[in-house]
């Protein structure tokens, strides 16, 4: 018989405080999608091989399929739902750059790519192509061939730098 012991966990999800209960084996992926409805978080492999379940934990990308929910107690979690910009269709600079560079086809990897790009640009506003490739190396894209994604991140970096100069 499966055990029913529940653990209380508090964390901030996209700026909002959340109090939830989970089992010791529950993954952050299951909690985010099934209990909290953040549907931008995708699943490909469930073992750290595809990266589409990436979310930001205290500003750094992690695989939510490998993260136990109890471990995020007191942390800040960001998903694509937390990204809001003021420009066209309320898109963030990285989202805009993805759209203009055709950096998505099926779009399944896109939320994870954007979050990984965000984590990079917040720490390094002017990354090299190699640094971008390294930052995105933990997410697989089966459609684009990666170059439009790298170009989108370069453009987003430029847009963000321009904005901070104004």
């Amino acid at each position, binding site marked *: 018989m*499966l*055990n029913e*012991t529940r*653990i209380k966990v508090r964390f901030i999800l996209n700026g909002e405080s959340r109090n939830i209960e989970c*089992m*010791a*084996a*529950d*993954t952050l992926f*299951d909690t985010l999608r*099934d*209990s909290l409805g953040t549907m931008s978080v995708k699943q490909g492999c*469930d*073992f*750290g091989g595809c*990266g589409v379940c*990436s979310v930001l*934990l205290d500003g*750094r*990308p*992690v*695989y939510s*399929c*490998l*993260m*136990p929910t*109890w*471990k995020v107690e007191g942390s800040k979690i960001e998903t694509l739902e937390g990204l809001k910009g003021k420009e066209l269709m309320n898109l963030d600079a990285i989202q805009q750059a993805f759209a203009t560079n055709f950096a998505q086809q099926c779009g399944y990897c896109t939320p994870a790519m954007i979050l*990984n790009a965000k*984590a990079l640009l917040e720490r390094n506003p002017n990354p090299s192509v190699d640094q971008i490739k*390294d*930052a995105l*190396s*933990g997410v697989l894209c089966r459609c684009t061939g990666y170059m439009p994604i790298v170009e989108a991140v370069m453009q987003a970096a430029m847009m963000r730098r321009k904005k901070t100069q104004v």
Partner: protein
Amino acid sequence: MRDLELNMVFDPSEVLRPSSFQDAVETLDSSDSKIVAGNTSLYSLARKGRLENIKKLVDISKLGISYIKEAESQTSEEKKILVGAGTTFQEITSSSLINGRPEYAGLKEALNKSPPQIRNVATIGGSICSAVSFYDLPIVLFALGTTLKFFSKKEGEHLITIDSFFQNPALYGKSLLIECQFSSSPNSASSFVKLCRRMSGYAVAMTAARIKLDRTSREIDDIRLVIGAMTKTPQRLNQVEEELRHKEPSIETITRMCEKSADLVHDIIPSVHASTAYKKRVLPILLREAITTAVERATER
């Protein structure tokens, strides 16, 4: 919603958060408890059916073992670095104690092989205590001659060499790894060479080298060579080391010794991606690259 498929093979009921080493090892007394550090390997162990009896997860994040610092008493010759077992790959690579230092260049190379999502959570302790031969970091730590500080119920805090750990990792199953210590000396450098199928993937074969050159003669004063993903546990190449010690590190000498290496390792095992014969072919090539890179780095100092 619960992942019922996972829960059939992994259904722990509590998370324990000990605040002292003593409390942590007490929890390891029972066979139904398991230490959790970054957790990057736990679900995969569970899906292989290896955690079926685990009921208690032991979270070691409250033990104050996430740090990287220089040891207090240092000689000008040798500088010792202490890394808490709970320190993440990312915390190590961003440390000024590691960055830009040829003696730790191999360490940085190994740490940067895994994707950022892993580097942000995986710990040095979890990487060593997994005790497998195909993880990158332990291979370099082995080449650096790392000393491991364990805590056990019987012995309290005690130091062992990484060489003894890899001779029989099962001996330390009920112990807590608390710290890794490695030192550098002038004229020394390290390197790491990995053959893998994709940028962030497990090694088909790999080698790490740490070399110290004699200050005046520029001969090899000390050398440690380690191979990974070839034998069941990481292995030192004692005979090749012996043959290169006190020799001038010319490319001819290095090439000649490396060519012998494949015959000196008897227990190479195949994997899904490479046969034993293939691994034997690549071993001298990877080894030569690791040695020449380390020599170049040590020479530039």
